[in-house]
């Protein structure tokens, strides 16, 4: 009887040790992200907010970084290395973790441009052959599947990404973003980034 109890105790301790080690490893991986993306993953210039982002989008981007297809300057500088040794499973676990943190809006755009940005986002500019962002990114810019949430991301991040799509970075992602962004003027981009930065 005593022997059985001892065995249970040993097994229980072993289990605890294993799960503690796993939790420790996971928290290390998360901490490697939050050094730059912020303690609550709300973003910290130039690293974008990850909180509330679509898990399939985060996972796909991590794979894009490790495959070097997302080749934007900051991606090359920071994320190629950060994602180099991530297994697909680790990428998925990180993606799910960050997607569950409630996002906060950056609110750092130009308020006076928000109305113009809203018009482009919700209606497009048919005369200039600029499509409405809402069709793919959703009425509240919440995204879906591999299509990212844009609402509440930081102005500088949104602006930079829209400029870089038009400049040919991350072209391997294929249509439609490179074509769409290349038609946007600097004014359009400033308006869109402003509007989106205030979205909840």
């Amino acid at each position: 009887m005593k022997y059985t109890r001892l065995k249970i105790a040993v097994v229980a301790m072993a289990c605890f040790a294993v799960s503690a080690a796993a939790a420790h490893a996971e928290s290390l991986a998360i901490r490697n992200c939050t050094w730059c993306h912020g303690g609550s993953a709300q973003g910290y210039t130039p690293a974008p907010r990850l909180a509330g982002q679509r898990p399939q989008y985060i996972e796909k981007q991590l794979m894009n970084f490790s495959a070097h297809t997302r080749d934007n300057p900051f991606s090359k500088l920071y994320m190629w290395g950060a994602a180099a040794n991530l297994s697909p499973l680790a990428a998925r676990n990180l993606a799910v973790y960050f997607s569950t943190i409630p996002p906060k809006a950056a609110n750092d755009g130009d308020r006076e441009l928000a109305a113009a940005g809203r018009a482009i986002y919700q209606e497009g500019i048919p005369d200039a052959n600029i499509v409405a962002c809402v069709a793919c990114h959703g009425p509240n810019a919440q995204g879906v599947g591999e299509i990212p949430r844009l609402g509440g991301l930081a102005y500088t991040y949104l602006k930079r990404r829209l400029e870089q799509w038009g400049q040919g970075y991350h072209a391997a992602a294929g249509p439609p973003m490179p074509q769409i962004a290349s038609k946007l003027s600097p004014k359009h981009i400033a308006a869109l980034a402003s509007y989106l930065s205030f979205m909840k």
Partner: protein
Amino acid sequence: MQLVGLAVLTIVFSATSRADAAASSNSAVVAKLAYCQDCHGQSGQGYRGFFPIPRLAGQQIEYLENQLRAFVERRRPNPIMSNVAHVLSPDMITALAAKFRDFNPKPLGGGPKDLVAKGERIFQDGVPEANVAACAACHGPKALGYEQIPRLAGQLYPYLIKELTNWGKERGQNPAHPDASFIMAPIAHSLTKSQVDAVAAYLSDLK
């Protein structure tokens, strides 16, 4: 002699300006086509955005013309497509419809495979006990459509479900402009959820 020279010059100039007009309208069609492709896909294969964006490839020209008019006339209330359609001239619509008619990409697919056989039966034979006609009777045995009746082969699974589920709220909404969509209303209404899913699964993978 001078007069003849002037006449020749005039002819040359008017010929050049006609050519310019043709070239500029051609480049306008190319730019507008690229705009359609931004959402509907490079080969018109459709796209799974936040909203399902339908396949236009291989679609009937008359159907596309009629639907673009429907957005303007609010027979199909759709804020995005109403904006898009408002700035299109009839010539532009016909030119764009002809371009999409010629695309032939493979279907995006993605519907549940285990529903395909049931969907095929409904499409080819209808559901007689529920007064649902065979879809093939109007849309054709290969679901390629005819004039104002749309091609359904290869259409997106979530788009087909959305349209069949919301037919009475999305089509024929302007009493001042009645259209052919009323034919589908009782059929869409009589189909059960599982029958809609099955037909959509069958069509979404059909070449």
